[in-house]
């Protein structure tokens, strides 16, 4: 696999999936702290 493709893949997957995971985790934590 090309080096450029590896960098782009890591960036895109990390940004989108990392962002999505972080947002879900933070939402769950906030809701738990509020007792919802």
């Amino acid at each position, binding site marked *: 696999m090309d080096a450029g*493709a590896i960098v*782009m*893949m890591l960036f895109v997957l990390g940004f*989108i*999936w990392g962002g999505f995971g972080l947002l879900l985790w*933070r939402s769950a934590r906030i809701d738990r702290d509020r007792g919802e």
Partner: protein
Amino acid sequence: MKTQEQFTSRFGLLVAAIGMAVGTGNIWRFPRVAAQNGGGEFLIPWLVFLLLWSIPLLMVETAMGRQAQKGAVGAFGRLVGRNASWMGSFVGFCSMAIMFYYAVIAGWCFKYLFGALTGKVLEQGGREFWEAFQASPSESVFFHLVAISCAGAIVYRGVAGIERVCKVMIPLLFLLLVAGAVRAVTLPGAIGGLNFLFNPDLSALLDYRIWLEGLTQSAWSTGAGYGLLLTYSIYTSHRDDIVMNSLTIGFGNNAASLLAGIMVICSVFALAPSNPGSPPAEELLQLGGPGNTALSFLWIPELFQQMPFGQLSLVLFFLALVVAAISSLVAMIEMSSRLFVDAGLSRGRAVLFVTLGGFLFGLPASLSTDFLVNQDNVWGIGLMVSGFLFAVAVNRFGAARFRRELIEPARNDLPIGRWFDVLLRWVVPAQFLILITWWLYQAAISEPDWWNPFASFSLGTCLLQWGVAFFIFWLLNDRIATATLGAETAPDPSRGS
């Protein structure tokens, strides 16, 4: 959905909203649009527009729906005055026009679910199954009817049903997408697919079409500019978060698209060479016509054939896809019905009217793939116009005032700052104006058929169909405003905030 009903929790709202966003836009549309636009280079505008177009517009829709407690027409009227009702009408009609052919695609998902259950899809292979299906117009119409009837029945029953089903099926769809993507990348030859999807040719970014398709795909798939989230927001509490929920919907939607893209494109690279007479994978992906329209439906069965418990996995996959497609269709029917409820029709009649209309107006798309592709082009890009109308409405109200009065009073878990004002005041309108001007210029100098209203992808067909819609709604503005808003004359920004 009765007015007193609300989503029971943030998770309930999020899965329903992600269910609204995740659907065939991710699994049917994203892989084929990304493939046709070069793969890697397409991801750049697609990511840019998620942040600069779709997420801000999702926030605007949520805030407008809550403030107005009405559908798109009433929301525009209440925000900027009854003279703006035609804008809401265009937004609503654009989503309805998408609903007409979306129901056909949801019907395809049903057909494949039944085919997976009986084992016919795996027995015949994706291509043969698709060709047999397309050769039978009555089947296409029948499954279109099945899809729109199911969605209509769910809308009739209310929000609780949507929330319950989505809570199970949306996480299941994500799990199956992960399993499918993992299997696809481990097939011999799949690396070619990853190279195609993640290796951008930066010179291709000078082509307007990639940017136009990137914005359209982002809006089509996240639901930005449809008025769907605006409608769902009527059923949320005024205190519910706006900023983080909009970000989660946008990122969740793109996460599903990426998995579907990896799954389908890697499958094509791994499995196409073993099909006798098949062109090379890259060529196959960039072909137009029905082969591209049905890309996911042709290749997903081939992929699942390579997996352990192939038939069971395929059944579960199409079951989850049916739910995802139906949850998006439900949102579109809900949005359309709400417009008629606001205009004085009873809820039951409005849902029946929209469901029946969806079936009748979806018939041409169920009988002709060319017509479907034309409608996807016209109203998919039409979402860009809808998004621009949302920005115009926010600016007429005042972007900073909109943020202060409609977004900040919610219990937001992430802060919203002046960046929102800059995005809505300058960035969103600039994106629209630059893209539309670039498109007009390029079409005029390089596409001899650009004016032809009967060509599937021409500028002329878009301008004609949008123009007719604009003209009718502009002409009927007062009547629509009176039906929806009654005697209300001034914007009422204090409602709900």
